[in-house]
């Protein structure tokens, strides 16, 4: 790990710690937008972490930038940080200036497509997309559309789109957006296609899940040390210890898988490490959340306790940008096609 990455993460941990306290978590859970947190994220340069320095960005290398999201996941940062980073990456690839405010990206679901056609000096969009993170709340929606057999990045105003608001299990906005007839004045062709966008989104959710699992582990271990039953801390019971050891294994596996994907993404978004991370972290999310709740007993099942800020995100993130089955089907299909005698080669080549 680079030294910059350690420094970046330490600074990020401090910022998240300060701005994601109990009160903010409670209010954002009720639908409020965390304005102070957002200003801090912007000031620190995190929202523009994937925008090159020359284009006004933070000038972090891609892996350092993505590893911020592990810390963000640890703190369940209740704001569209990953989404705005992703938007910055797309915009930079198209040479479009990075606008202010939280940004959304569409489409995010396999099968959803937006098309664009020229309209005077601008572009006109067609198509519906489901479960777009933060669309209604965004300052702009960055759309990756097909146009003249190429990939067009365009900026759409949420006010121009027909948006039906929704949310994931964690209460994070996931909106259905109908772009039909929406006019965009800003647009440019770019290299990234829907598959690349999906891959980078998958790396981001894997990083966030790894962070969330670390936090769930810490919370659970802490609770097991404090909660007393039968005259001793429950962490003294072997059954509880064994469960927490399994949780630790899942957190470690998710972290390792996410780190591998973060490294790979910087030079190859189609690396098998990306699929592996989403598969492995997604599986860890389910096992880890279940153990954390078991260890916490009824108190962890309440709205008052903070555990659910992490576990509800884990249950949501594992299904976003392709679930385990989606990525495993792709990875398994490639490996099968390459054949049995190339299997080991495929594993070692992923690094």
């Amino acid at each position, binding site marked *: 790990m680079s030294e910059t990455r350690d420094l970046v993460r330490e600074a990020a941990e401090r910022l998240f710690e300060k701005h994601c306290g109990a009160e903010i978590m409670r209010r954002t859970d009720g639908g409020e937008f965390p304005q102070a947190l957002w200003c801090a994220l912007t000031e620190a340069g995190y929202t523009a972490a994937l925008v090159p320095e020359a284009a006004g960005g933070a000038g972090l290398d891609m892996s350092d930038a993505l590893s911020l999201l592990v810390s963000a996941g640890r703190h369940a940062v209740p704001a569209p940080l990953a989404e705005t980073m992703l938007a910055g990456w797309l915009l930079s690839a198209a040479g479009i200036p990075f606008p202010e405010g939280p940004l959304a990206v569409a489409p995010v679901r396999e099968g959803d497509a937006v098309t664009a056609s020229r309209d005077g000096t601008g572009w006109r969009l067609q198509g519906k997309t489901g479960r777009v993170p933060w669309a209604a709340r965004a300052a702009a929606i960055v759309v990756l559309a097909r146009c003249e057999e190429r990939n067009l990045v365009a900026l759409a105003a949420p006010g121009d789109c027909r948006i039906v608001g929704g949310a994931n299990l964690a209460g994070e906005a996931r909106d259905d957006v109908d772009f039909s007839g929406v006019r965009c004045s800003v647009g440019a062709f770019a290299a990234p296609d829907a598959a690349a966008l999906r891959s980078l989104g998958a790396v981001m959710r894997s990083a966030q899940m790894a962070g969330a699992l670390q936090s769930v582990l810490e919370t659970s271990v802490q609770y097991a040390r404090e909660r007393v039953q039968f005259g001793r801390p429950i962490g003294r019971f072997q059954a509880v210890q064994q469960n927490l050891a399994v949780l630790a294994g899942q957190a470690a596996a998710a972290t390792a898988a996410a780190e591998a994907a973060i490294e790979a993404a910087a030079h190859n978004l189609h690396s*098998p490490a990306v699929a592996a991370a989403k598969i*492995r972290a997604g599986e860890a999310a389910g096992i880890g959340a279940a153990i954390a709740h078991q260890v916490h007993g009824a108190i962890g099942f309440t709205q008052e306790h903070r555990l659910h800020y992490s576990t509800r995100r884990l249950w949501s993130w594992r299904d976003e940008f392709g679930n385990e089955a989606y990525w495993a*089907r792709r990875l398994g299909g490639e490996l099968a096609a390459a054949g049995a005698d190339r299997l080991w080669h495929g594993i070692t080549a992923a690094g």
Partner: protein
Amino acid sequence: MASIDNLRFEPPPPFPEAEVLRAEVRAFLAEHLPKRAITEGVGSWGGHDRDFSRKMGACGWIGMTWPKRYGGHERSALERYVVLEEMLASGAPVSGHWVADRQSGPLLLRVGTEQQKNSILPRIAAGECSFCIGMSEPDSGSDLASVRTRAAAVEGGFRVNGTKLWTSNAHRSDYMILLCRTGEAGEQRHGGLTQFLVDLKATQGIAIRPVRNLAGEHHFNEVVFQDAFLPGASVLGEVGSGWQQVTGELAFERSGPERFLSSFTLLVELTRALGPDPSERARIALGRIVAHIYTLRRLSRSVAGMLQAGANPAQQAALVKDLGTTLEQEIPEIARQLIDAEPDRASTQDFVTVLAHTMMNAPSFSLRGGTREILRGMIARGLGLR
């Protein structure tokens, strides 16, 4: 925070040179891998072939990280890792030197006398000398500190009485590293233990008897010591420090690629049997297993990097072994649901015989080298719960 810091995995250090070595190892295997039954690779390091071990020694691939003056090659732990994983993935017959290279040699390096190191390490590195581990006994498995085999001080050395059990490859080994009681346990239960370097070929009073496993195979043994005399020079390390020495040894034992590749031959044969265009269900299963292997490989290389850097990642090693053996045991259970075949060791179809062998060996994966429950206990200690 503290809870995670103890179990932190440093990213494996980048090491592009290792890929050059990988190509050399693959070329070597293409030429020298002996024709053998496909099932020999099942269970990791199963096959025993002195000739093959000598050839590997000649390539400089045994004792790779040891000092040159003891026959080693002063290469890095990550280069060694490449050799290990390539050997296991190809099912190469490496058991003739596996234990000596992984565990006994490094232990000798750390605590051995000059004389012991000079006489033995170069022979291990040449692939000429094999070791077995005499720790477990009939009444001492997980509770290793309770061993009862006793070495009593006598004129010029020790007289040993007792029984070791489950000793893998004792019948084919030149030396055993024997854990014995030499004194009282004391309050911590860990005192009074001593390790000995036992020359199995030259020592009187040792009887080695096969114990067949449930597959009818002979890998492990019962080793009975009856008034066996060990010269004073065969004490390994300090008298009474056996416990510390043994626990140091186990970090090396637990985190290697052999802890997640034991069922790899089956995965290869499963892939072959599924063909290039398998069902959706099979793709998902295959992709998931390989995602686990990618991750385990990174965790395991991370431990190799930490060992190289001089750290003692014992708890991380336990965690890798727990995750790895869980996957190894899952693979036959998944494979059998994807191909409609009944496991049969006598079958002429590779998938079917490998499935049969893997299935029957699988229970041992989470027993040997420390049981799942014991490993999870170590992880819980790392979390500060014990």
